[in-house]
Every structure is written in structure tokens, then in C-alpha cells.
């Protein structure tokens, strides 16, 4: 993939995540902040489908943004064709792994 496309995804995911995380934080403020973090309230959030959906999107956006950022840092640390390929694929696999694990948590809490 062209580097400019990767970076557009990187910047786009950051912008979108900032918007959604702002909504997420504002939702904390609809109740008292400490109260909103209580166990029962957190579980209730997961059961509320639109909210769970938003958490899932935040998870995807932050994972994409974070792992592209990590790839950039690692590419600067060391150079070489094989090293770069290993880093790019490893970051992609780790990103999919994190999204899968996070999604599993959201689904399990939502259903159970």
C-alpha cells in the first residue's frame, strides 16, 4: 500500500477517534463522573447497543491509529527490506488481534 494512503488512514482515524472519544467523555458527564464509572453503570453502557457500537468503533479507530504509529516509530528505529516487511505485517496482525480481543469483550458483556 502507498505510504500516503497509510498516512491518510492514520490521520483520519485520529480525527474520527477524537470526535467519538469526546462523545464518550461527554456521556460520562451526563451523570456524575465517578458514578458513571461504577460497575453497574459500565455494564449498562455495554448493554445499550448504540453505545456498545460506539465503543467498538473507538476500539477499531484507536487500534488502527496506534499500530500505524507504532509501525512508523519502528521503521525509524532500524532499516532494511526484510525488517520493514516483518514490522508492517506484525503490526497488522497485532492490530487485528487487539480488535478481535476487544470486540470479543464488548460482545460477551453485551450478551451476558
Amino acid at each position, binding site marked *: 500500500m502507498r*505510504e*500516503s494512503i497509510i498516512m491518510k488512514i492514520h*490521520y483520519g482515524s485520529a480525527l474520527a477517534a477524537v470526535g467519538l472519544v469526546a462523545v464518550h467523555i461527554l456521556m460520562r458527564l451526563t451523570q456524575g463522573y465517578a458514578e458513571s464509572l461504577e460497575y453497574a453503570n459500565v455494564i449498562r453502557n455495554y448493554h445499550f447497543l448504540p453505545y456498545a457500537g460506539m465503543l467498538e468503533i473507538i476500539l477499531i479507530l484507536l487500534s488502527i491509529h496506534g499500530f500505524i504509529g507504532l509501525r*512508523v516509530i519502528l*521503521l525509524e528505529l532500524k*532499516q532494511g527490506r526484510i525488517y520493514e516487511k516483518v514490522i508492517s505485517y506484525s503490526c497488522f496482525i497485532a492490530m487485528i488481534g487487539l480488535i478481535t480481543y476487544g470486540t470479543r469483550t464488548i460482545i460477551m458483556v453485551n450478551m451476558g
Partner: protein
Amino acid sequence: MTQIPGLAEEHTSTPLSSSQSITLRIAKYNPVHDTEKKFMEFNIPYEKWTTVLEAILEVKKHFDHSVAVRFSCRQATCGSCGMIINGKPRLACFTKISELNSNIITVEPMNNFPIIRDLAVKFERLFDTHHKVKPYIIRDDTEITSDTKEFLQSPEELEQYIQFSNCIKCGLCNSACPTMATDSSFVGPQALAQAYRYVADSRDKGKDTRLKIIDESHGIWRCHFAGSCSQVCPKGVDPAMGIQLLRGYMLGFKS
């Protein structure tokens, strides 16, 4: 002393004399047999107008002729005499001792360049990356060879890139760049500024080719916008701005 025919003799053999003097510390290092840089100190008299290059040449002439330094024009035009002067990349011929406000002047080879010896560094990487971005106007060959064809340009079109055409390839920007220090494959601010210089030229037709060249994993996107390149450029080129303007093309804000 025999004079080589055709070569003008230098008439600077009288040592500089002045009531003021500084300590000039010159980094000495030969990668063939030295493990680390050593500093040699010289007491050099100076006048208000004495440049760091003149002080180094004074050392070469009267104290240690083995000091390796590259220079040519002595007027900030050839881009040969870049070095680190009191911690900052500067042109030695364009830096007056009096403007440094210090009694000790330390000169070292530029960072991010392999050292040949003492203050002289290898420019291969800079020339390679410069060449890589195709630093020339790209047009259809048939258009260029025609005697009658003129490529007119308005003052506004000229303004888009003229600042970037002042680059003298001194390498100070590459020496100051933090990404150049960590990423040995990074194309560098000098080459990126030149890519912009030609992309922004209304006569050029090579924009897509050039943008493709710098759109790789060690290309334009590795710039973190530290801005140190623009701070040290002696010709006011502002490579950091060129890089941001190029990004504008790549992100679709400019066409």
C-alpha cells in the same frame, strides 16, 4: 617555492593581528585510525569581520596544515563549508566570529554525514537523494528541443517556488534534521525541498512522478516537522514549509 603555472598565489600568509582573540577548538578525527574525536585548541586573533572559515584557514597556514576542511567560494554560494559551529550547523564562511558572542569557538563536522577527516564529510547521500527527486524541469522532449518554444511564467507563478531554488546543497538542513539522525534511508529535507521546488514550477510536468518517488516508507511522511532544517538554512529556503506544501498535494488539498 615553485609556483604551478596558471595558479594564482595566495597572499594571505601574514598572520591575523588584532587585540582580540578567541580559542578555536577544532575536531580532529580520522576514521581510518581514530576511535574518537579529539579537539585541538588554537589561540586566534580576530577582527570584527573575521569569519570562522578564515580562522580555520589561519590555523592551517600557521599552526597545523593537516586540518581537513572543505571550502571554495568563501561567500555562501558553493555550499562547501558547512560544519557545526558552537553546536549549530552553519556555513563557516558566512559566520563571523564576532556574531557568536563567545571566547571559545568549537568547530565539528556536520552531523548525519559520514566523516572523511576532521571537518570534511561525505556528500554522497545528499547528492543521491537530491538526484532521486529529479531536480530538473520535466517536459516532453520534443517541446524542449524546439527553438521557438518559450515557457512563459507570470510573477505569481515564479513566487510559488523561487525561494526554494536558492538551495546551495550545503547539507546544513540534513545535518540538523532529527529524522536523518535515526533513519538512514530518509530522503531528507534538502531533497524534499527540491522536490517541492520543481513540483510547484508551472513549467514542470513531472509532478506525479516526483510525488510517487517521495511517497514511500522513508519518504516525505517520515518528517516530524521539527523545523530545525528551516532554522539553520543559510539561504532562507525553509525546507519544512516545502515539505508541508508537498503534503498538501499528496493529501489532495492542492492540485
